């Protein structure tokens, strides 16, 4: 056996081992949370969380689904924002991306820089907050969250890079046929960009789905139904939120299975997106590889 063969096997062996261990590490926390959510509260209090459920009880889930008003409201808010935000954002990003890579568009460098500059220098959080909350009057308005998540410079650049792979001749042929620029975009370019739209749309959707930050700034406790992740944030971080979201259950706070409830809330708020994950994962991969090269 040559030495190169031996080292090949060694590296391959180490690779399998390390990748397996790392993969397990990525998965373990999810197991921890699911296990904890179906554990018995008394056992958790005594022995702490573990990889396997301590006892078995669905009490936490029963608590959540006994008064599901908050949760359902949060789901409705998040799903509505995600669907409309992704659709509208995607259309705007695609239009902009297409226009900005048209070589015969004289303003393309100027507009590109106008958008790119916002990543180089930005007003801090405080002036932005004052502007949006006070001057635009969007405090307590879902629009403050919805609008600010519509697009990012990065997604526009990503789209621009994607559109570049559509042959220029398509646009030219459309022009020859006498179609206007918007018609060319809508009828000829968009249908060819389905993978790009899927990837960009997924990033947008993920932004809306995982949103808690803008909600904490602009919505706080002013709205009855918080976006899903912000709802989870409150359940985890404030004892009162747990109490109020279980209101109507006629229990005193001490009776609440706090630990398992937190974990069950996490499962309920995250479960659906994790189940969806295997089907959409590949679109991300293509997006990351294309987007890695900005410009």
């Amino acid at each position, binding site marked *: 056996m040559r030495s190169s063969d031996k080292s090949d096997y060694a590296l391959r062996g180490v*690779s399998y081992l390390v990748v397996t261990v790392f993969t397990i590490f990525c998965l373990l926390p999810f197991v921890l949370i699911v296990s904890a959510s179906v554990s018995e509260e008394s056992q958790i209090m005594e022995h*702490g969380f573990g990889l396997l459920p301590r006892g078995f009880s669905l009490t936490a889930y029963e608590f959540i689904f006994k008064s599901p008003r908050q949760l359902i409201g949060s789901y409705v808010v998040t799903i509505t924002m995600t669907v409309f935000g992704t659709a509208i954002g995607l259309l*705007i990003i695609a*239009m902009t991306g297409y226009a900005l890579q048209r070589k015969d568009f004289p*303003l393309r460098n100027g507009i590109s820089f*106008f958008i790119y500059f916002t990543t180089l220098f930005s007003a801090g959080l405080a002036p*932005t907050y004052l502007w949006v909350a006070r001057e635009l009057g969007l405090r307590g308005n879902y629009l403050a969250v919805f609008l600010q998540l519509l697009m990012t410079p990065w997604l*526009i650049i990503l789209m621009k890079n994607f559109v570049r792979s559509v042959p220029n001749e398509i646009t030219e042929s459309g022009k020859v046929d006498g179609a206007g620029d918007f018609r060319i975009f809508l009828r000829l370019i968009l249908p060819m960009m389905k993978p790009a739209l899927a990837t960009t749309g997924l990033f947008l959707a*993920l932004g809306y789905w995982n949103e808690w930050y803008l909600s904490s*700034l602009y919505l706080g406790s002013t709205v009855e139904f918080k976006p899903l992740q912000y709802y989870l944030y409150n359940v985890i971080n404030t004892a009162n939120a747990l109490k109020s979201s279980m209101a109507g259950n006629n229990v005193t706070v001490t009776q609440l299975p706090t630990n398992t409830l937190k974990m069950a809330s996490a499962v309920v708020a995250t479960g659906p997106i994790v189940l969806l994950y295997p089907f959409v994962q590949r679109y991300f991969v293509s997006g990351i590889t294309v987007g890695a090269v900005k410009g």
Partner: protein
Amino acid sequence: MAIQLDARRVRSGESRPAGDGRDRLRRIGHSKTLIIMCLPAILFFLVFAYAPLPGSWIAFTNFNYHDGIFGSPFVGLRNFEFLAKSGQLWKLTRNTLLYNVAFIVLGNIVQIAVAIMLNEIRSKYFKKVSQAVMFLPYFISVVLVGVIAFNLLNYDTGALNALIERTGGDPIKIYSQAGLWPFIIVLFHLWQSTGYGSIVYFAAILSIDSTLFEAAAIDGASAWQRTRYVILPSLKPTFIILLLFSLGGIMRGNFGLFWNLVGNNATLYDTTDIIETSVYRMIISQNNFTTSTAVGLYQSLFGFALVMLCNWLVRRVNEDYALF
């Protein structure tokens, strides 16, 4: 990658108008539809990115709601003076920079290592599944990361302490030991970003010309030599571009991660407070707009200068890699 950037430069060079000003105006007039197509995006950045900029003036005032941004009394640099004298500015800068350096250095090392190892794996199914699982942590919200940390680390019921107790040790009050948190935060960061980051490097390895590997095999190169002399040099352009991007953001922090791991836990601030978390806290719980604007402006200016410096340096080393 370098080729692609080159091509872009050539192309944009071509597109520069050759004619006189009137010709340019005429061409702009012809692209009315394209301008309209860009309008929503322009409006968006105008409203949400450019319009708040003048508000940075607050940093030089003693802001109060009644007088508004431009009516509040002007105090010059006093807000900055206060920040610098209290040591606050130094602490925040130090933490932000150190965390980012750790993230960038360790992040890239781990990502490259994982990408190389993924490339060694022959089973297609194994590769696909492990890649998908490694990518999962990026997919979930940081709020859930906070839940995971609580599950693992809390004193009364944390899984880690449960394990320690079972093996006969004494439980640790992790949430009150500031010294532990840099490690915890870096680990969680790596946990969340490695799968994501390694995809880029993995793609770069896949795009390496296979004749290079064949030549190395004929020369009897060992696996280590193959990695050292073929794979690593081919990853250099990707690495430099990614490094430049991350250096540009070195004054910005991964706010969501820090806030959901640490939040309002004051005992940990010394080692965990970064610019973003302190600004957020000032706004949310203290309604303090002067200091937070001053910190934010300092961050923006410092960050901007750093990007410019990095870009200038890179341009000197190799013009192809420069951002602009």
